[in-house]
């Protein structure tokens, strides 16, 4: 008799689990434990007096209120945009829809570079205004300002409101609103009394998610905010890298962890198990064409705002990277920023040319793809077999997403201090950290595909005389090719753009592209800045290619956040 197999991977259950769990234990729970120990040390040393907790309170308070303010601003733009996307049919909607996936995949350093190329002291807008009005100083201050931080946060998160609220709105039965109208409610009353209460769960979910992202914001605050603004993440970084106060960094990390876990927990409560589609499914049965002048104006306004926010910085980035600001203050077209990437200039911050950073990034990204695909596939198989444990296992795998990248970096830094796993001599720790974050995505992409393979298909293969290995090769593998590719692209772009953890782990002589960009942008000199922009543009193009591939591979692609 042929024993029916639930999942056809030819190894035992425990073996499937061994590798992913060992990986998590060594590279996630161990560092986490170390951080807790450091935090306890700090607490024991300073006691719990409020005065000694000031270094914690200050960043915590700033983190919270800037996240709250960013969330409110994001909702202010996102809600009308969600309405427009959910209700109207208009030209260019699909393009705009694809463009809104950009923030999901775009590295933060690239986004910041884009905004500086537009609004920074040497950005297109300032240079243009200076030339136009014969000014000596930049009229717009973007760097080191709060509004700069808020702007980039809105850039990143509007798309979440658009997706979560927009798809809920598109699926909301129009008859509720119409019934309200027929019962005597004005449009405003119908919105307030019926539509908004019905949308409340999705608005709350979107707001919480946006808040979480703003709360854990790191690169944006570090690069745009400069020395004046420190969130918990930035404070952890400063305490670790500049002040070498590891116990305090540990304490901050624990506070950060507790906060993010609480927010994630509430989000889970509110949102249930809903996933967020990479490409929003904003199709409603009753999409309307634009008719009245008012409708046209409103949609035009919203779309202009969205395009300005999402596209203009990226265009500015690409354009500015091809311009060179001469000593006379005139900009000229030049490919110098790109050609110089391969030159090891003597006054370079690093000992290698920027192209070297690209090679490092590429290498780490490939290792991340390999690691996360292998471990993710094993975990996904284990989960599809042990249906009863699925929830617990899934939670375990997803846990690293709850910890911020900076916390991961700090954890690695304090844990792996001795050979062979030594931060300063074992560069593979970087892709390992990336894999911790990429693995949950891989598992999520694989799982639906695995669950969708009917048991009967495997049994049929078995009956036809295929061995388990052959069954796997002929039945599972072809069906998994596509999700594996999607997961791989995700892992690749994620690793390529990762900044938070990498900045703790990368040695000065082997930087990754994002680390190099962040350092070059902060350095004076047109060439340094130009090279940062050139590198950012390259990353931007790679991300664009990734989006294109993802859309091709998986039209209804789901990414989970």
């Amino acid at each position, binding site marked *: 008799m042929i024993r029916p197999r639930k999942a056809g991977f030819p190894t035992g259950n425990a073996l499937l689990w061994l590798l992913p769990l060992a990986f998590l234990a060594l590279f996630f729970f161990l560092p986490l434990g170390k951080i807790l120990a450091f935090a306890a040390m700090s607490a024991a040393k300073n006691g719990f007096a409020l005065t000694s907790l000031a270094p914690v309170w200050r960043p915590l308070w700033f983190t919270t209120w800037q996240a709250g303010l960013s969330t409110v601003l994001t909702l202010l733009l996102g809600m009308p945009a969600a309405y427009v996307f959910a209700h109207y049919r208009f030209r260019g909607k699909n393009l705009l829809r694809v463009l809104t996936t950009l923030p999901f995949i775009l590295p933060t350093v690239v986004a910041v570079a884009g905004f500086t190329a537009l609004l920074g002291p040497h950005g297109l807008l300032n240079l243009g205004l200076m030339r136009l009005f014969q000014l000596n100083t930049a009229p717009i201050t973007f760097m080191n300002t709060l509004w700069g931080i808020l702007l980039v946060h809105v850039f990143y998160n509007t798309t979440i409101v658009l997706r979560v609220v927009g798809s809920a709105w598109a699926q909301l039965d129009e008859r509720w609103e*119409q019934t309200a*109208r027929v*019962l*005597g409610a*004005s449009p405003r009353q119908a919105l307030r009394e*019926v539509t908004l209460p*019905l949308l*409340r769960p999705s608005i709350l979910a979107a707001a919480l998610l946006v808040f979480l992202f703003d709360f854990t914001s790191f690169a944006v605050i570090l690069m745009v905010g400069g020395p004046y603004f420190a969130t918990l993440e930035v404070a952890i970084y400063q305490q670790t890298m500049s002040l070498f106060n590891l116990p305090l960094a540990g304490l901050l990390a624990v506070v950060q962890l507790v906060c993010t876990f609480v927010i994630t927990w509430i989000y889970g409560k509110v949102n249930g198990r809903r996933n967020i589609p990479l490409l929003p499914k904003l199709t409603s049965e009753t999409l309307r064409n634009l008719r009245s002048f008012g409708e046209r104006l409103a949609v035009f306004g919203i779309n202009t705002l969205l395009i300005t926010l999402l596209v203009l910085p990226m265009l500015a980035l690409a354009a500015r990277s091809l311009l060179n600001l001469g000593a006379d203050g005139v900009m000229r077209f030049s490919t110098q920023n790109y050609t110089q990437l391969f030159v090891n200039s003597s006054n370079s911050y690093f000992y290698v040319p920027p192209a070297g950073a690209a090679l490092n990034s590429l290498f780490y990204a490939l290792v991340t793809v390999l690691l996360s695909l292998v471990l993710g596939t094993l975990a996904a198989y284990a989960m599809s077999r042990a249906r009863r444990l699925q929830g617990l296992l899934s939670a375990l795998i997803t846990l690293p997403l709850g910890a911020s990248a900076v916390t991961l970096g700090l954890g690695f830094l304090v844990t792996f201090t001795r050979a062979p796993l030594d931060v300063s001599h074992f560069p593979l720790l970087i892709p390992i950290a990336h894999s911790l974050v990429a693995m949950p995505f891989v598992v999520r992409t694989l799982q639906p595909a695995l669950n969708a393979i009917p048991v009967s298909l495997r049994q049929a293969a078995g009956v036809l005389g295929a061995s388990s290995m052959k069954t796997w090769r002929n039945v599972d593998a072809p069906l998994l090719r596509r999700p594996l590719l999607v997961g791989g692209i995700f892992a690749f772009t994620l690793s390529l753009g990762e900044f938070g953890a990498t900045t703790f782990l990368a040695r000065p002589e082997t930087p990754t592209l994002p680390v190099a960009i962040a350092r070059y942008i902060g350095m004076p000199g047109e060439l340094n800045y130009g090279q940062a922009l050139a590198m950012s543009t390259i990353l931007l193009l790679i991300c664009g290619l990734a989006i294109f591939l993802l859309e091709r591979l998986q039209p209804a692609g789901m990414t989970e956040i």
Partner: protein
Amino acid sequence: MTKTDKLQVVNIEKEYEGSPLLRGISLEVKTGEVLCLLGRSGSGKSTLLRIIAGIETAEQGQVLWNGENMRGVPVHLRRFGLMFQDYALFPHLDVRGNIAFGLRMQGMTKEEIDGKVVDALQRVNLSGFGTRRVTDLSGGEQQRVALARALAPSPHLLMLDEPLAALDRALRAQLQEELRQVLHESGIPAIYVTHDQDEALALGDRLALLNEGKIVQSGTPEELYRQPINAWVAGFLGMENLLPGRVVRLDPLTISTAFGELACSAAPEQRLRVGSAATVIMLSLDAETTEAKSGANLVRLTVEEAIFKGDHYRTFTHGASGESMVLNLKEKGQRGDEIGIRIAKETLLAVTN
């Protein structure tokens, strides 16, 4: 009722995705009257209601309330109630909250609202249901809540879009009766949309038949059943014996059919000419067998099957050339029996094709 209100719909035209959906619809309904709009799904019935409510706008035509054009009057100021097929109860409000909604929008005080909600619940036999969640209600209860909600703010006009379609058969019969009472007690002019002719007969004071964007025929149920203007109307009303034929003589009107030449009656507006194609509608299926071998309107048939229906046998037969005819006979016929029936001229209605 001292004042008589009147809704008039004049020559409404509406396109849907480039093709005409409503093509010149005109109708009217008055206080104390229920107009049943009868038509297949996709015939534009719901769209017409939405146009009257002001949710959609027509390309052409007018909606007049007591002679006043409603163009430019927003939905919420028209005071036309509309009840959707699946009720669209507000899931975030309880039963009371749903019924109170329209009253709150009118700015009533809490006391007034409370009183009216209690009345409304009583009217639909749901007293004590006020604090229930609408998602916990059965289909029939939801229907009643929707009706109570629509009636509570005393709309000038009530429109019901297939209000019983989502319910099972037994419940439908019961609620149909309740609905009839509530509608007639309220006296509010009502437009009732359905695709079910039994429902239309039970509820409508007048019927309007909608097909391919046009009102094919309207009138009282009796008028429609006694004088269907064409074969489509007859078929839609459920008449089964529609006999295609050709006009042989005009005086007396005689049509040649597969069952022989039949003397028929016809409405004067039917333009029948000798030689033109026509359809003979048998208005009644009731018939008696006769022993006569010849005579006017004598039809000879062969029995296929007889089904007992209490006071009669529903009998399936066919004529000499194989065309089928259904009859309600007093006696049970056996398969293969040759029978003859005589059909009264008055029950045979000839219409042009």
